[in-house]
């Protein structure tokens, strides 16, 4: 057996966390060491994760780098593996973690050691969730990731952090309990929680529906879909910058990833049954939250609402069951991972200087911060889905997919073309353009080197994948084709059985 690269990647951040834990010295030294260790660890993890891409076989639709080991019980094994749909999300995680460490370099000054540990643990959980092929393992990483995130918001957050944390907790608790019940039912019914085997289990359509709704509760909250989205704006507003970055860029994707990895393959019938529900909720999310975003006074809230709208595109794309729709949804997820991360970093940059997120407190930043304005502009345009940025590719493919299924959904979703331009450009105008009249802003400084190092890779990737998204799309082709094929087989199989039964 080859080197277990997935497990190495997953648990490598924990090694760094242990080093930080045993660092000794006075508070100042510990803080400095914690920062350095965290940066080095996450940097090494990122470089190591590139090995995944280099050794990845894009032609293959199945799982690669698979690892299996006996674990809790017969049927609940330690099963890891990735395909073209999960691999890029691991890279997204490993790319953003060092950026998050950099973003927290000066803005976090209390309990730095614990903060960095929380981030490294979070990285482990995120990589794990995208690698797990056993439902229990998935659930552990899925829930395990929440704990450091609760702590990051609850300890290093803003004034109203406890309220935000509990709101976040309550929503996710409801979802996880239902998902846990579903997992237990599956285990007792089929004696396994291995996702690859469950996909072949052929679950009774009636039970599929109940299970689907249970999992839906967990995933819909995570994504979040309207109307279970209200935790997100609060969580973002209260979270420290880096917390928002990981939350928006990676954690929101886990819900959609759950649909892809779990609901769609193992519950094909229920998926079809509930597609209209998903469409409805997604379309409402796009229109409703875009309009709400328009009226926000807090920058982070605005970006949070815009995230919900973008996630609406993801859920539409996934449920079209067309190659363009699903590949588009994956593109939106990745692109949003880069763009929302970048936008929250941009808010963090000015928040560190002015300690306010209120749009009205800013204006005319371009006069003092031309570099910042240029970077922010690229991110805003990507958020608007301008062709030539990564934001366009995914949204357009989702529209293409949706149009093939229902023109009504495509048309309503396409209103985002107008609405996103309205809220994003209005934000940009109020913060960046205009004359610099506010006294407090007169001495504001442009990006420093650390901040350039954070934002420049994101600018480059957003434009690169806008002009040349083929490396990503090529990753998706085989597994998406596989997914659709399996899905159709499963449906036809069941119909076949149904027809036979009816004939008897």
């Amino acid at each position, binding site marked *: 057996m080859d080197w277990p690269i997935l497990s190495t990647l997953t648990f490598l951040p924990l090694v760094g966390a242990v080093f930080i834990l045993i660092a000794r010295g006075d508070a100042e030294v510990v803080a400095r060491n914690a920062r350095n260790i965290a940066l080095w660890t996450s940097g090494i993890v990122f470089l190591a994760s590139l090995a995944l891409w280099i050794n990845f076989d894009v032609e293959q639709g199945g799982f690669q780098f698979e690892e299996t080991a006996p674990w*809790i019980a017969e049927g*609940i094994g330690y099963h890891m593996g990735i395909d073209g749909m999960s691999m890029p999300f691991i890279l997204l995680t490993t790319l953003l973690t060092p950026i998050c460490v950099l973003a927290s370099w000066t803005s976090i000054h209390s309990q730095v050691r*614990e903060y960095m540990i929380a981030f490294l*643990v979070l990285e482990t959980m995120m990589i794990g969730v995208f690698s797990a092929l056993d439902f229990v393992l998935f659930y*552990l990483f899925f*829930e*395990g990731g929440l*704990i450091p995130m609760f*702590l990051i918001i609850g*300890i290093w957050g803003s004034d109203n952090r*406890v*309220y935000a944390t*509990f*709101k976040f907790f*309550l929503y996710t608790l409801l979802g996880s309990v239902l998902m846990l019940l579903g997992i237990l039912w599956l*285990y007792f019914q089929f004696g396994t929680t291995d996702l690859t085997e469950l996909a072949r289990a052929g679950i009774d359509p009636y039970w599929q529906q109940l299970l689907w709704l249970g999992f839906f509760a967990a995933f819909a909250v995570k994504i979040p879909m309207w109307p279970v989205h*209200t*935790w997100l704006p609060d969580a973002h507003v209260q979270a420290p910058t880096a917390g928002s970055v990981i939350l928006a860029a990676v954690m929101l994707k886990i819900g959609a990833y759950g649909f892809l990895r779990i609901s769609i393959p193992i519950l094909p019938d229920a998926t079809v049954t509930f597609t209209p529900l998903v469409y409805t909720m997604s379309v409402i999310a796009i229109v*409703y939250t875009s*309009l*709400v*975003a*328009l*009226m*926000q006074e807090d920058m982070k809230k605005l970006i949070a609402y815009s995230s919900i709208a973008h996630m609406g595109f993801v859920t539409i794309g996934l449920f079209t069951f*067309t*190659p*363009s729709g699903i590949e588009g949804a994956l593109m939106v997820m990745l692109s949003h991972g880069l763009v929302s991360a970048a936008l929250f970093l941009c808010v963090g940059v000015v928040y560190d200087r002015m300690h306010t997120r209120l749009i009205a407190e800013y204006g*005319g930043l371009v*006069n003092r911060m031309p570099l910042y304005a240029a970077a922010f502009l690229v991110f805003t345009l990507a958020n608007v889905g*301008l062709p*030539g940025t990564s934001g*366009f590719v995914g949204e*357009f493919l989702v*529209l*293409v*997919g*949706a*149009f*093939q299924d229902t023109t*009504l959904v*495509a048309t309503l979703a*396409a*209103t985002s*073309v*107008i*609405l996103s*331009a*309205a809220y994003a*450009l*209005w934000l940009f*105008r109020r913060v960046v*353009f*205009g*004359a610099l009249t506010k006294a407090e802003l007169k001495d504001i400084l442009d990006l420093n080197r650390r901040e350039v190092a954070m934002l420049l890779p994101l600018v480059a990737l957003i434009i690169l994948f806008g*002009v*040349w998204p*083929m490396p990503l*799309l090529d990753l*998706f082709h085989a597994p998406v084709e596989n997914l659709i094929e399996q899905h159709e087989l499963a449906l036809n199989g069941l119909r076949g059985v149904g027809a036979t039964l009816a004939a008897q």
Partner: protein
Amino acid sequence: MLYGLIVFLPLVGAAVAGIFGHWLGNRGSQMVTTGLVTAAALLSLAAFWFVALQGQVAVVEVLPWISSGGLEANWTVRVDQLTAVMLVVVTSVSAVVHWYSIGYMHNDPHNPRFFAYLSLFTFAMLALVTADNFLQMFFGWEGVGLCSYLLIGFWYEKPSANAAAIKAFIVNRVGDFGFALGICGVFFVFQTISFEEVFQAVPRFVDTDIEFLGGHFDTLTALTMLLFVGAMGKSAQIGLHTWLPDAMEGPTPVSALIHAATMVTAGVFMVARLSPMFEYAEFTLMVVTIVGALTAIMAATIGLVQNDIKRVIAYSTCSQLGYMFFACGVSAYSAGIFHLFTHAFFKALLFLGAGSVIHAFSGEQDMRRMGGVWSMIPLTYALMWIGSLALAGMPLFAGFYSKDVILEAAWGAHSGAGQLAFVLGIVAAALTAFYSWRLLFLTFHGKSRADHDVLHHVHESPPVMTVPLMVLAVGAVFAGMIFAPYFVGEDPSFWGESIFVLEGHTALENAHHAPLWVKLAPTVVAVLGIATAWWMYVKRPEIPARLAAANGLLYRFFLNKWYFDELYDILFVRAAKAIGTFFWHRGDERTIDRFGPNGVAARVMDIARRATRLQTGYVYHYAFVMLAGLVLFVSWYLVSAGL
């Protein structure tokens, strides 16, 4: 290679000036961008020679862009006759505008940024016209929209410029909403978005249905209507025209390049490019004709009473675009493109001339504070005359050839919509001549209304500004007479396969055999328009005020631009804000939160408050909780698994 260079040289210029502008300084950025765009313009002439005159159509594949689920789009440079004409228009006007801007913007500290945007715009426009598939066209389409947004808002300290920039982008996006759906529809129907493959398949889809939003529509009509919404936005046709006058907030060279010569004509180009689809959609063609005709007349009536020199020209652009559209609507695409071609020269000339006037008047744009300076800036004055003569369609000038053939084609269409377009077009031609000379008389003649200081400073622009004007003036005079035999002559083979017209659509053919009165009418009404302007603004200058007072209602209706902005403000802007606020407070806060988490959270908070008291400052407790949580989860499984 040649064609690749034409497209990418401006991009290189934009990137260099945009990224290294800080080190290059003003002069360096000007030289790099202007030099590269000028090179592209010269190469375009070569391209015109090879492609348009020798008929060597070329396709250069650059890079695959998107490939997903059967949808393939490549970055391509495709040059056929139609593209070759556009290449010449875009690169030559862009080069001229770059040169002119060196003089016009010499006081501005942001030269590198300005020139980077101009060159980026040129690249996007070239990407649009060289596309061989719908998606690259859309890329160029949105790219020019972006540059337009950036350049309108170039002076970012001006609130009005920022507002105009956003308005331009969002109104364009309304059009793009239709365009994007149209592309989705094209892929849905044809399973490809390559122009060539779609055009070949079109005849098979005549008289088929498509289901759209619950209704059944003729396939090609539905698709072309969606695409045409995009064209209406970009080319500022009635209903989606409101952004164009406001776009004049940008620097004047921008107005000349983007909002007169090139970007706003993209919609006309699109309809001509897609002529193999539009030809089979009679209903859409009728809509195109009517929309064009209504825009031509609406914008002309508004142009009559505006006082800002640039706004008059902006409305005139809007009106001329209407002509181009109704030409396309009656299947005289080549006439529409011909007018696009000549219009680019004389309208850029008028705008840059207006810029020269504004420059002379130290930044004043209101014609009510101008006048009486023709002898002080004779060169600008003469050039403005040439531009106006071409615009009004005086014989021998460029506009004469293109506008006449459009009106004759409208007459020759022998259809209701064609007749309407012909009549409205003739009226608009009279109005065009009137407001053009009103502009000339108010700006240059009579007793000056500028204050003494300003008047004292009135001076001719430097050669770097006037030489480009003269280049355009040459185009405004000769572009019509030289190219008319090629573009709209009896033999349509000049266009090769780039423009497609069905057998039965003979408007252009009939135009050549129009009766004498049809051929004379545009010129006669234009002369009448000029005479009226002379009578009202030179002979009896007190008349306009009296006329305005006597027809107060009509005057205000025109002056306030048919109240489109006010209507849209209520219907869309305020409505969106009100609904957004409603959803936020009533929906999220008072419904979802109140009945959802807050009720529960309130209970939990009581407990939490007690818990935090225990924990504050002792982070190890958190770590402990983390660990405990994990242990708890694991043991739960162990127990539930029955171990």
